[in-house]
Every structure is written in C-alpha cells, then in structure tokens.
C-alpha cells in the first residue's frame, strides 16, 4: 500500500515537473498575435514550433467584427509581433492601443489594390459632409495576395524576432502551397468562366477579381434562415443573370439547400476561413472548396 502511494507521489511529481517545464517553454517562446486565421496559419507555418501564435477568437464569432476584452487586449499588447490584415479587417484595432513598433500590416504592400465597397455619406453639425468608405477585407482569397501577406509577415518576424530560425525555408514551402492553391483556383475559374455565381455574403471580391469570375453578392446573415423577401430577391437575380451556383459562407440547412435547388442553383460551401476551422487547416480547407468549385463548373 505504502509502496503504491510512493510510486503515485513520484509520478505526480514527475508530471508536475513536466507540466512546469512545458509552461516555461511556452512562456519563453516569442508570441505573435494575429487578427484572423489565415495570418495565424501563416505564422504557425513560418515559425514552426519556435513561436506561440495568439489567435483567440471564439469559434462562433467572425474575426472581422469581433472585439477582444480587456484581458485579451493586454495579452495582445505584450506579444512580440502583432500581425494585422489591413484593408479595414478587424476594426477593433483602430479603437485599442497597440505598440506601433510591433505592428505589421501584412497587406500594406498592395494597399493600392484594395477594392472599395459601398460607402455611406452623411454629415453632422457644421462638420460638413463626409463618407465612410468601406474596403473589401478578405484579401487572402486572392492567393497571390495571400503570398504577399506571408512575405510581409516573414520579413517582420525576421526583423523583430531574429532568434527564430528557418524562416526563409518555411516561407518557401508556404509560398509553394499558396501557389498551388492559386493554380487550383485558376483551373476552377476556367471551368466556371461561363457562369455567374451568387454569394450569400459579400466576401469574395478579391477571389472574383483575381480569377476573373463574376460573383454577385447578397447580404444574408450567416447562419440565419433567409426570409421570403431574400428568396424573392435571389430568384430575381437568378432570372436576370442566369446564375447556376450559390456560394454559402457556412453550410446551409437542408431546407435552404433544397429551396436553392428549386431555383436551379447548386449550393457550394465556401468558408473564407477568417476563423480557425473545426477540421483541417487553411490549406486543406481551401483545397476542398476549390475542388468543389472546379467540379461544379464541369
């Protein structure tokens, strides 16, 4: 009995030591905070196990509109590098205090190529008229732009975290994977060339521009059942543009899928992967989507 408890104590002590060592190791690793999953994925690929990636957006939240709490902001403030997407993605970054020396705007290199979205003009008091111009934010859906963002992140890691090794080799591998996605997207676009696509949410502006696709965007709430008025609007657009494919941001309900089929639309789930997927990763997730698009075009 005594021997058994002694063994248990030794095991417990060993486990505690291992846990403490693990925690210490995790604390010692430099941290990179990112505002979306693609950047988190790029950081993980570039740094391997040498860095800790801080991306704590809850699974059910859209990182573009999520706002971190105070404790999360404090954690982000202390990260060695903070990777922003740019193009107006994650508006919360304009309302919190982040150290400029540790920020990297990964899309700054192609900011002239941002796509402007609808703007609202208004005035208050004697300030005169002004407008809040929107910018399409899902830049990484053009995989060449995604590669440029990965490049910018790699450069920032090399400058801020000189101790992280193999960045160039990891970047090369990542760029090769992004190039393969770019090729897959281009192939899918060839198959889809004759089609007009309708998207349930305006997410795919860069994808459409990069691969020469005509994507008409609705503004349905993700995860909510469309209203009759929205279905009527969709039916009108299908009739006007002869669309055959309907892109969903998240998997639609069986009922919604069936109703779309009644309008002659094939439903394809195209998650932009702004948040971390429950299964797979950025590369595998995008491959599935691009394969689905390619198959649908045939």
């Amino acid at each position, binding site marked *: 009995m005594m021997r058994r408890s002694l063994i248990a104590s030794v095991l417990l002590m060993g486990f505690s030591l291992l846990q403490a060592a693990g925690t210490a190791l995790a604390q010692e690793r430099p941290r990179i905070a990112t505002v979306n999953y693609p950047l988190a994925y790029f950081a993980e690929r570039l740094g391997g196990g040498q860095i800790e990636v801080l991306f704590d957006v809850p699974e059910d939240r859209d990182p573009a509109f999520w*706002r971190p709490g105070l404790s999360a902001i404090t954690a982000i403030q202390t990260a060695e590098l903070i990777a922003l997407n740019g193009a107006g993605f994650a508006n919360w970054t304009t309302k919190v205090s982040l150290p400029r020396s540790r920020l990297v705007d990964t899309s700054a290199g192609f900011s002239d190529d941002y796509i402007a979205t609808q703007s*609202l003009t208004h005035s*208050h*008091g*004697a300030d005169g008229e002004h407008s809040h111009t929107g910018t399409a934010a899902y830049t990484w859906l053009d995989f060449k732009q995604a590669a440029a963002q990965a490049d910018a992140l790699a450069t920032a890691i090399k400058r801020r975290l000189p101790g992280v090794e193999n960045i160039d080799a990891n970047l090369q591998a990542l760029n090769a994977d992004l190039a393969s996605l770019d090729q897959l997207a281009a192939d899918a676009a060839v198959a889809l060339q004759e089609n007009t696509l309708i998207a349930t949410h305006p997410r795919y502006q860069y994808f459409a521009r990069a691969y020469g696709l005509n994507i008409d965007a609705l503004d349905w709430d993700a995860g909510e059942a469309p209203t009759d008025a929205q279905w009527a609007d969709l039916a009108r657009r299908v009739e006007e543009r002869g669309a055959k494919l309907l892109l969903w941001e998240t998997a639609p309900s069986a009922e919604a899928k069936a109703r779309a089929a009644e309008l002659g639309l094939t439903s394809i789930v195209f998650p932009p992967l702004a948040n971390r997927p429950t299964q797979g990763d950025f590369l595998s997730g995008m491959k599935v989507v691009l394969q689905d698009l390619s198959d649908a075009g045939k």
Partner: protein
Amino acid sequence: MNALYLAFAHLRWNWARSLVLILVGALILAVPMISEILLRGSEDALTRRAESTPQVIGARGSQLDLVMDALYFSEDRATPITMAASESVWDSGLGLPIPLYTAFDTHGARIVGTTLDYFEFRQLAVLQGRLFAVLGEAVIGSALAERLGVGVGDTLVSSPQNLFDLDGVYPLEMSIAGVLAPSGTADDHVLFTDVKTSWVIAGIGHGHEDVISAEEAEQGNVAANAALLQFNRITDANIDSFHFHGSAESYPVSAVIVAPYDTRSATILRGRYLDADNPLQLVLPDDIIADLVDRIFRIATLLDAVTLIIGVAAAAAMGLSLFLSWRLRAEEMATAWRLGAGRGSVFALAGAEILIILCAAICVATLIVLSVRTSSEALLNWLLAL
C-alpha cells in the same frame, strides 16, 4: 565659556536683531549653493533627457520650442504637424517614430497623446494598474496623481480649449487605467493617453447615436443636425460607434520622436530634412540642449558675479550693524573695563557674538540647502515646464 554665555545672553535679549543677522548670514551662504544646485540639476535633467532622445521631427521654426515641448511638455506649444511625418519615418524603415500630441490640458496638467512605444522608449514602469488599452483610457504620472489625489479607476475630464468654440473641442472624460512609477522627469507631471484618444478630444474622432436605421442606409446620403448626441465618455457600450474622419495621415501631432535603428539610418534621416523649403525639420535635442546649457552657464557666470557683489554688500551691512551695536554698547564696555575686565575679555565677548551668529547662520543655510536639494527634482521639473 563666560564670553560665550554673555554673548548668547546678549543676542537673546536683542532677539529681533540677532534673528535678522542670522537670516541675512544664512542667505548670503545659501544663495550661491542653491543656484549651483539648481543649475547643475537643470543641466543634468536637460542633458539626460536630451541624450536619451535621438531625434525630434516638428514644424520648421524655433528648434528650442520644439525640443522643450517634445521633451519637457513646456507651456509653449510647438506648431502642429500631421501624422504623415510619423508615417513617412515608419515607411522609410530607418527608425521608430513616436508621435506626441500635446495640445490639451486637464486640471492644469498636459495631456500627452502618444503610442505605447513611448513607455518602452522612456523605460517608464507602471506602479498601479496597467497601460491604456482602449480609446478613452489614460495613464497618469505619479506626481500629477498625487497632486490631484486620483488613482486607478478615477476619471479626469479634458479642459475645454475655448468656451466659445461650441462646435469644436468637446471635453472628454478619461478613465485612469494606471499610475506610472516616479521617474524624476517631466513624465511624472502629465496625463498620457493614446494619440487616438487625443484626436477624439480634438473632435477628429467621435461617437454618436446611430444616424440612420439599416433601411435608411440603403437610400444613401444622410444628414444629421447639430442636436445629434455625441458621447463625451467612451464606454464599452458606445465604443463601437466611435469613428474618425478623413485620412489618418492628416491628423495633427505636435512632434514626432524618432529612434533611428542605427547610425547610418540616423544620418540618412537627418539628410532628408535639411531642405529649408521642407515645412518639417529634424532636430537633435542633444545639440539644442547643449547650446541652451552653454547659454545658461554663461548667464550663470554673470549671476555668480552679481551674487558675489550682493554677498559682499550684505556682509558689509552685517559688519556695520555689529560695529554700530558695539558703539551703542561703549558705555557698557567702559563699565566692564572699570570692573577689571581686560581688553582681551572685551574682544572675546565680541568674537563669541560673531561666532554664535555665524554658527547659527551656517545651520540655517544648511537646512535651506538641504530642503532645496530634497525637492530639487520637483522644482526643476516645474521650472523646465515653464
């Protein structure tokens, strides 16, 4: 011993005269030492801060005003420039720009809008709480917190710049997120906030009730009148409504501190601002302050001469006062002479009186000098901020 006793008794009897003599003597001794302490202290404070600030970019004009505003948050504010000056340094990859916007005050103290990099650059530690995290939060300097009796969780309201500017700057209530540890610099006497929060005070960024509903938004152009409720406190509930107008590069800043990455970068940066037509100038605080200190010490030499002349005059006045008091005591001395006191005893009595006055004056002067030395840091910061 008897001479000391008699001299002390006489001085006590004429206490008012003795007190004046002691105070005058103490001042003659203390003033040169106080001016030396303050001069050396100001030289140290000025040069230490200047040496730790490699470069400052600001509007072309008085270099001294620019440095005094950027380093010591002086009363004279530098002409504002735009955030583009900071962005161009950042884009050049030659150094780290730290913008400073010092246009506003609260309770007689300067509000310094900056970025978190400032605290790392100046190696400022937080004593209580944390650094600011969201719009509307501030971090207070230790001396200011003590003066106002505020701490973490309290709020401070920015002072309106102009009572008649009803359409301009709105007072903003800022919550104190942290108190800085004392640093013995101008940073102890100001309120720090994110530069974006200072732009909210300037009216460039603001939050208000929804102007329109989602349905109305589709109709395009919307006008809201002056009755639209603007928030003067940023809370978790209304922070999402805050937005900024125009390009961030056009927003004002008072100066930009630049920390070049290396000597080569520093040289390249200097070269970029040499053109006299450039509305911006880059100054080296070390050079400007060295020049200022040099001038101060030239003036100090003059002051020393004046102090010496005044000291000699005051000492002569003291001597005359003692001499006259002895002339008044001539009859008293004659009585002592008749009683058998020798010439030596009379001189001993006079010497003891001078010795007691001198010792008392040295003690008082020491106390004055020590008290000035103890509070010299605060005194210097106050003087430098003028």
